[in-house]
């Protein structure tokens, strides 16, 4: 049985922040009416999160969680091995709702950025206010990193997790390396 492989096989880099590719993460794109109780209940069963996140927020614990993508879209995080079963259950639970749930685990790459300068590394690449006043744990943002679309959220330990398309994983990793190069701390965020 051949193992599934993430885009970059778990590479990492240490500069003013630590950059790691996280490996495979189960992900389900769910589009539907977010005010629908049946949908909320199904999401809770799939992810363990009791409530849906508010706009621009992520509720994530380890490999499970929910990210708010748009007024009619959520990104559900589940352990990679369990995505098939969870998706099946979700689709079954939503069979009477107008909703779309699809497995996008393999369409993405995930990175983690940790360290004091993590905010600054991202601020070099994304047109987003990453100051402490504006960006705190739980905050989720879809934007771009340099020239490609990406989304990221901040964890309780003030590290970031970044999701991008799998095809540009190599580009994003190299971008993050440049942004985290030694000697490049800005010292303001």
């Amino acid at each position: 049985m051949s193992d599934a492989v993430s885009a970059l096989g778990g590479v990492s880099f240490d500069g003013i922040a630590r950059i790691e590719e996280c490996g495979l993460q189960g992900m389900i794109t769910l589009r539907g009416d977010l005010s629908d109780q049946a949908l909320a209940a199904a999401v809770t069963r799939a992810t363990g999160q009791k409530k849906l996140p508010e706009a621009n927020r992520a509720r994530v614990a380890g490999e499970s969680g929910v990210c708010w993508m748009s007024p009619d879209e959520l990104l559900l995080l589940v352990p990679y091995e369990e995505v098939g079963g969870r998706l099946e259950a979700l689709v079954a639970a939503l069979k009477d709702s107008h909703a779309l749930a699809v497995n996008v685990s393999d369409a993405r790459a995930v990175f983690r950025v940790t360290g004091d300068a993590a905010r600054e590394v991202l601020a070099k690449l994304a047109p987003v206010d990453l100051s402490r006043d504006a960006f705190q744990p739980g905050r989720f943002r879809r934007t771009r990193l340099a020239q490609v679309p990406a989304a990221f959220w901040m964890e309780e330990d003030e590290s970031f997790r970044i999701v991008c398309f799998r095809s540009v994983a190599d580009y994003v990793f190299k971008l993050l390396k440049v942004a985290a190069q030694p000697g490049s701390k800005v010292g303001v965020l």
Partner: protein
Amino acid sequence: MLILRCPYCGNDVDETDLAPGGEAHIRRHGPGSTDAELTDYLFQRENPRGVHFERWRHAAGCGKWFHAARATDTLQVFGTYSAQTTEPPQEIRDAITKARPGWSWREFS
């Protein structure tokens, strides 16, 4: 570089995260329309110096289309609003009137 507030995710977004979509509130003319209607629909556009209504998409963000009312001469933004409407809502029109009394744009004023 403009900043517009996406009415769907609420973020104030840099122009680099947005995609422009041209003039707003254009009515589609399909089969059965006259040549003149089709020409208007496909090709005729306002080019005002002043109040203008546009379509934008929060392309690198939540992906939603929205409308923006702004002044092309000063870049003042009167407001952004839902894409699911065929005309500017009253509060947007009021905001424009406050800044530019007597404005008009196509059939709206």
